[in-house]
């Protein structure tokens, strides 16, 4: 009985595939919050180092454990993602990269660059340690 409507349906969040720019936009916020947790971890590590070898041993044990390494790896990527996306925001502030194809390309560049920087960091870390 219902006649199919020719009118466009509004994009519904649950079935609408978000464009890369929208995914990056909200990810910047999430990664920022994750980095706040990272800063708290850094503060804890610094305090433990200042308190002496016994306290530091706890930090070290966590950092060299498997969950610790995974956490640090993810944190490195989150940091570089926020870093690269932040650079993209700064470029926008200067007036660059607003055309539609540029917005998409820069978006994918952010992901590629953050992955590359993360891999380089961990290759360096593996070589040093």
């Amino acid at each position, binding site marked *: 009985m219902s006649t199919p409507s020719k009118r466009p349906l509004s994009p519904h969040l649950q079935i609408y595939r978000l464009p890369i720019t929208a995914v990056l936009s909200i990810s910047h916020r999430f990664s*920022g*919050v994750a980095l*706040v947790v990272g*800063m708290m971890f*850094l503060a804890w590590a610094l305090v433990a*180092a*200042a308190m002496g070898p016994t306290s*530091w041993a706890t930090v070290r044990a966590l950092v060299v454990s498997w969950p610790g390494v995974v956490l640090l790896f993810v944190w490195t990527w989150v940091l570089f993602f926020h870093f690269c996306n932040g*650079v993209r925001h700064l470029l926008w502030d200067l007036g660059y990269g607003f055309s539609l194809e540029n917005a998409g390309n820069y978006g994918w560049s952010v992901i590629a660059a953050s992955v590359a920087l993360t891999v380089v960091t961990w290759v360096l870390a593996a070589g*040093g340690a």
Partner: protein
Amino acid sequence: MSRIRSSGTAGRGAPHWWMQRLSALVLAPVVLWLVLSLATIATLDHATVTTWIASPTNAMLLAALVLVVCFHMALGLQVIIEDYVHVPRAAAMGILAVRAGSGLVAVVSIGAVLKIAMGAD
């Protein structure tokens, strides 16, 4: 309280916007320095780590990084609160808590760096 309430995007939006970007610009090179340093530090034993922190250049850069990171994160968290918390009183309390928390993290971290740099045990 009144000062905090007026410092939302409606009141002091432009300085907040500038500070967010200025701190990002300052952080970019310092963050790269820290990641590179941590990735290439020889071992993670206490002596190596504290010796690295105690070097004047490292201690100064580390303290500066902590300070600017805490500033940058207080600004960022403030925007999140302003976007999602629509009860003005709750938002003001949240922003106050964010500032106090960020300040505490900065003070504690810089205190730790200073203690290591001065070699006090």
